[in-house]
């Protein structure tokens, strides 16, 4: 008793605390920090407001509609103000958006919490709503923790790792704490005896909530940031990209935007990384022959990527700092670190890796700081690196699903999905070109309408392939099978699973590599500037020396053939490089040189850069492409290709006259990384199916109808239509019975009017029992509608009285009967709750119980 009393004493603070936490858990997933604070405050105040409202003398409906009305009003008002320009002018667009956002979060949580609280005060049963709110918020916050993914709510597991705790224990503790708090709340609420059953119900409730959330969450791991192709990493910088590490070059179009440095800078920063190690394991196919799966495996060795990222980050920053010494680089470094390292590495340090995108604010911030001070960054990176090595992290998280419309088989044996290219040498590495006349064959923005590349690939040796990409995770830009021709928007086939989708049309290579021998390289249409752009490499003479040494080792007949030279370089690299994601070549000025003339161990970004530098030294126009790489055999005959985080890749390309950019990937023969996980076929199939379930969009070709189940379809449709018709008919009857007294004549008014009122009584749960006579029923109803007695009398009289022509009798009094009906309805309204009436009115078969 004492315990209960003390719990009761603190029940209001306890509830405010629980609901505030719930608001925090809910909003922190998507709202800005100020908004989170606002909604927490809102819900705490909402408890007080709801308590007050609940004890006020207004009727519950009034309270609820007032709350809902105010909420709506605020939303409308803010929307109106936002639309107008005066406020934006006064505060600036950013500030005004933020301010209104805060207001909205505040008001919404205030309204919801106070409405529920008021309901609970009025009727204890509604405490279920409150509990559901708290349980749902907790379940939502931990929703990512599913299928045993203990690292999933990254913000949580990061912290846990850092603090040296097992996230599982942390999760269990949170769950247990939530249940205890809820139990206390429930306990405090009951004034009388607490039923044990209600306490038992709590875990059940929690379980149900978790199960419900689970169904909608499926196996959609947040992309570990591995793939920098995604938003996280945002900075598209190259190197990282490879595996998580640095990501994509693309400028920070990403949300973090701010955090990222300008692209250029970013690029620079990354380049160094790239240079440090460019080895691409992956590329298997690179080999003319076609890749070997083994290499892929290496690639997959996702873990490596994360580590790379770290390395890259380090490398880049270092490099940048030294070279540019520019502020911009500092930033880049920061970016890299932030984008890639920050996100991922940070994770690594902590023990986990990257955070989900939302982390936006958080994750970006740290990197920036890092950027500010180059040194510190480096250091941290180093640390990270060392730590990383301990942490294997193959990221097989699904990133996207590609559905090919055509049965296309690439000569290289692997599909290359190009997201961006790096062709501009900034002194340390290759970055995305800032020229307007180079690399015009890539589309960098998501299409909002059909978009064509400015410079499409030649038609020779290529075939049109169309397809559709559904992104599981937000990316920095679209990617498509090389070489993309045009992109078009597409409706999202399954919004709960995919973040967006688009269609692509590509001209993909069909010409075998052997046929390219003797072809000339470079595009005659290029201006000398552009040609020089594609040939510019490091000034380090060792590159040219190595390149010529390789060429000199070729048979004489082939020495003059540029494509043969390129292949020779590729084969040399294949043979002499070792794939390892642990060797990041960070912190050196030219990571590529460090690799090529050092331990010859690195990963795809390093490999790609090595090849490009060597080719350029030989006068062969080349660049690095980045995106995803997937072995053809991963398709397993299906049209769906599942791209995973570990499929992120960078590869070297050369321009062959008449054929355009040809991917000539490096496939290192030795691999130090553990093999990656094989593609999860079930997942691939499932996501493929989901991506396929699309509504028609005009851009899509008409889908072939699946005729296999017409009967089932017909049956379902027929049932649905019949059901709909039946429902319509029922409502028609219902409404007819309601309004027909308005047309009734003297002889029928008593019957029809009575029947109509009977229906109204059915709505609120008053129906005559078969053992009741009408009079007894009328007595019962008289509790809420005394006028019903008179109506009953008239009805019975009309039926059982001796038939006569005396139309002055009351049962033939149309106006009087209608007046009584009005009175009865008024009495019903006054004595029943709105919800009861509404539910009754919605019920299509309520009149069946009128008798």
């Amino acid at each position: 008793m004492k315990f209960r009393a003390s719990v009761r004493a603190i029940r209001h603070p306890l509830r405010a605390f629980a609901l505030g936490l719930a608001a925090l858990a809910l909003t922190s997933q998507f709202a800005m920090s100020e908004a989170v604070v606002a909604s927490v405050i809102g819900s705490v105040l909402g408890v007080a407001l709801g308590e007050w409202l609940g004890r006020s003398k207004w009727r519950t409906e009034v309270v609820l509609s007032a709350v809902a009305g105010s909420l709506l009003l605020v939303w409308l008002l803010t929307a109106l103000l936002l639309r107008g320009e005066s406020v934006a002018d006064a505060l600036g667009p950013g500030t005004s958006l933020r301010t209104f956002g805060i207001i909205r979060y505040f008001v919404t949580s205030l309204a919801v919490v106070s409405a529920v609280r008021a309901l609970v005060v009025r009727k204890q049963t509604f405490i279920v709503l409150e509990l559901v709110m708290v349980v749902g918020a907790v379940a939502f916050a931990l929703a990512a923790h599913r299928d045993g993914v203990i690292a999933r709510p990254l913000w949580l597991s990061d912290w846990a790792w850092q603090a040296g705790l097992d996230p599982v224990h942390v999760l269990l503790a949170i769950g247990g704490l939530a249940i205890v708090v809820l139990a206390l709340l429930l306990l405090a609420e009951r004034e009388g005896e607490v039923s044990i059953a209600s306490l038992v119900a709590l875990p059940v409730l929690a379980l149900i909530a978790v199960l419900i959330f689970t169904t909608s969450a499926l196996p959609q791991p947040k992309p570990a940031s591995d793939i920098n192709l995604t938003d996280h990493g945002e900075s598209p910088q190259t190197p990282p990209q490879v595996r998580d590490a640095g990501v994509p070059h693309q400028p920070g179009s990403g949300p973090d935007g701010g955090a990222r440095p300008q692209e250029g800078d970013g690029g620079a920063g990354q380049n160094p990384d790239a240079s440090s190690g460019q080895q691409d394991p992956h590329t298997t196919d690179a080999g003319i022959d076609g890749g070997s799966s083994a290499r892929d495996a290496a690639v997959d060795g996702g873990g490596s990527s994360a580590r790379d990222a770290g390395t890259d980050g380090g490398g880049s920053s270092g490099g940048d700092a030294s070279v540019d010494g520019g502020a911009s680089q500092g930033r880049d470094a920061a970016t890299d670190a932030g984008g890639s390292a920050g996100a991922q590495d940070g994770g690594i340090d902590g023990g986990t890796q990257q955070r989900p995108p939302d982390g936006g604010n958080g994750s970006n911030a740290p990197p920036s700081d890092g950027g500010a001070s180059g040194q510190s960054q480096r250091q941290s990176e180093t640390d990270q690196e060392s730590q990383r090595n301990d942490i294997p992290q193959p990221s097989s998280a699904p990133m996207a699903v590609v559905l090919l419309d055509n049965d296309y088989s690439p000569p290289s044996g692997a599909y290359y999905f190009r997201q961006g290219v790096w062709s501009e040498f900034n002194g340390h590495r290759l970055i995305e070109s800032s020229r307007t006349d180079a690399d015009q064959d890539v589309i960098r923005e998501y299409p909002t309408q059909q978009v064509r590349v400015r410079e499409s690939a030649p038609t020779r040796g290529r075939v049109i392939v169309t397809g559709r990409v559904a992104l599981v995770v937000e990316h920095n830009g679209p990617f498509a099978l090389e070489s993309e021709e045009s992109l078009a928007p597409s409706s999202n086939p399954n919004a709960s699973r995919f973040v967006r989708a688009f269609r692509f049309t590509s001209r993909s290579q069909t010409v075998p590599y052997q046929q390219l021998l003797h072809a000339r390289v470079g595009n005659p249409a290029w201006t000398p500037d552009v040609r020089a752009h594609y040939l510019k490499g490091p000034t380090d003479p060792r590159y040219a020396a190595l390149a010529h040494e390789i060429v000199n080792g070729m048979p004489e007949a082939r020495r003059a053939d540029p494509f043969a030279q390129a292949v020779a370089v590729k084969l040399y690299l294949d043979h002499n490089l070792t794939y390892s994601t642990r060797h990041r070549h960070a912190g050196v000025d030219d990571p590529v040189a460090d690799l090529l003339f050092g331990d010859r161990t690195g990963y795809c970004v390093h490999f790609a850069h090595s090849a490009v530098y060597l080719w350029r030294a030989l006068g062969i126009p080349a660049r690095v492409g980045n995106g995803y790489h997937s072995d053809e055999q991963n398709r397993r005959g299906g049209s769906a290709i599942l791209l995973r985080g570990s499929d992120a890749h960078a590869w070297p390309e050369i321009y062959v006259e008449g054929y355009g950019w040809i991917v000539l990937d490096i496939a290192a023969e030795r691999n130090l990384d553990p093999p990656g996980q094989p593609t999860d076929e079930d997942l691939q199939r499932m996501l493929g199916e989901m991506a396929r379930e699309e509504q028609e969009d005009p851009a899509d070709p008409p889908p072939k109808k699946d005729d296999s189940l017409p009967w089932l379809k017909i049956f379902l449709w027929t049932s649905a239509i019949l059901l709909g018709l039946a429902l319509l008919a029922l409502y028609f009857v219902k409404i007819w019975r309601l309004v027909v007294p308005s047309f009734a004549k003297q002889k029928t008014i008593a019957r029809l009017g009575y029947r109509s009122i009977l229906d109204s009584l059915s709505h609120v749960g008053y129906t005559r029992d078969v053992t009741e006579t009408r009079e007894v029923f009328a007595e019962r109803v008289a509790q809420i509608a005394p006028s019903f007695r008179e109506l009953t009398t008239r009805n019975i009289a009309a039926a059982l009285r001796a038939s006569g022509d005396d139309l002055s009798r009351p049962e033939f009094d149309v106006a009087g009967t209608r007046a009584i009906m009005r009175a009865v309805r008024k009495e019903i309204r006054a004595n029943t709750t709105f919800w009861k009436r509404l539910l009754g009115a919605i019920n299509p078969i309520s009149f069946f119980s009128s008798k």
Partner: protein
Amino acid sequence: MEPDFEQSEHVTHTLAPPITDLNGAFNVVQRVRARMQAAVRGRDEVIETIIIALLADGHVLLEDYPGSGKTTLAKALGDCIIDDQPHDEIVTFRRIQFTPDLLPSDVTGTTIFDPNTNKFFFRAGPIFAHIVLADEINRTSPKVQSAMLEAMAEKQSTVDNRTRKLDQLFFVIATQNPLDLAGTFPLPSAQLDRFLFKIRMKHIQRDAELEVLASYKTRRAGVGNAMPRVTRTEIIEARNVIENFVWVAPEVRECLVDIAARTRSDERVLQGASTRSLVLMIPALQARALTRVRDYVTAEDVFELAMLIFAHRLELAPGIGNVDQVIRDCAAEPLDKLARLTLRR
């Protein structure tokens, strides 16, 4: 029968106009009801039932414990009625206390030799009255009971082979004690059938009982005596009016037949409701409708009266104790059908 206006005036100080419509009949009901309610507290339901029986020309059997007001009730009823034909030998109210040694002639009357005229003349027994209270009717011998039986069924009495008519207003209120059955002669079912209603009186409510105690003195002093009464003729006329002007819909008759049929087919019942009970029920329904200010019979009337009418007529199978439940079950569906009728036409 033509009312004797002169006599009525003499007794009631008013010239009672003949009753020709339901308003007049209802006025009779009101007067009887008011007087009886003034005399007996807490028995409104029973009073209502007795009035219905009176107007339906039936007899009632009150079953209750001693001291619960049976006699008071009967006397109050007798007190309501004015004999407007004082010249005949029939009086307003008689009470017969049945005992095992009672003889039929004690009930019916007997012929006596008059030495002055050298003739036998008939000395009327207590049944020659408008209202007869047959107290503890189950305590007398079957011979006496059968004398009562004839009187109740035929409204006539045969003494010395001469049959004499009883008055048209001949209303028996019999009582019996449900317990204390030692030395009694339970009424045979044929005689039970003569009673329109068997009324099981319940103990009155606490408030009413308190009021009984409080008003005991004033009531004994005859506070209700100043209230208007009714004449015998008015009751006869009211009966005629009710019979002619209260409408019994064909569906109501169907309902009665259906209920009776169900009691006969119900396996809990050995002997179901008789046709006579249905015939008797019609005027009772009409009378009840009148007391509820209606000129038509409804399912409500059937529902309320079914228990009173059928309870003592059904012979239940061994082991079945609750006759009310049986009747309710049998009546539910026909009544529901009757109720639904009002939504259909």
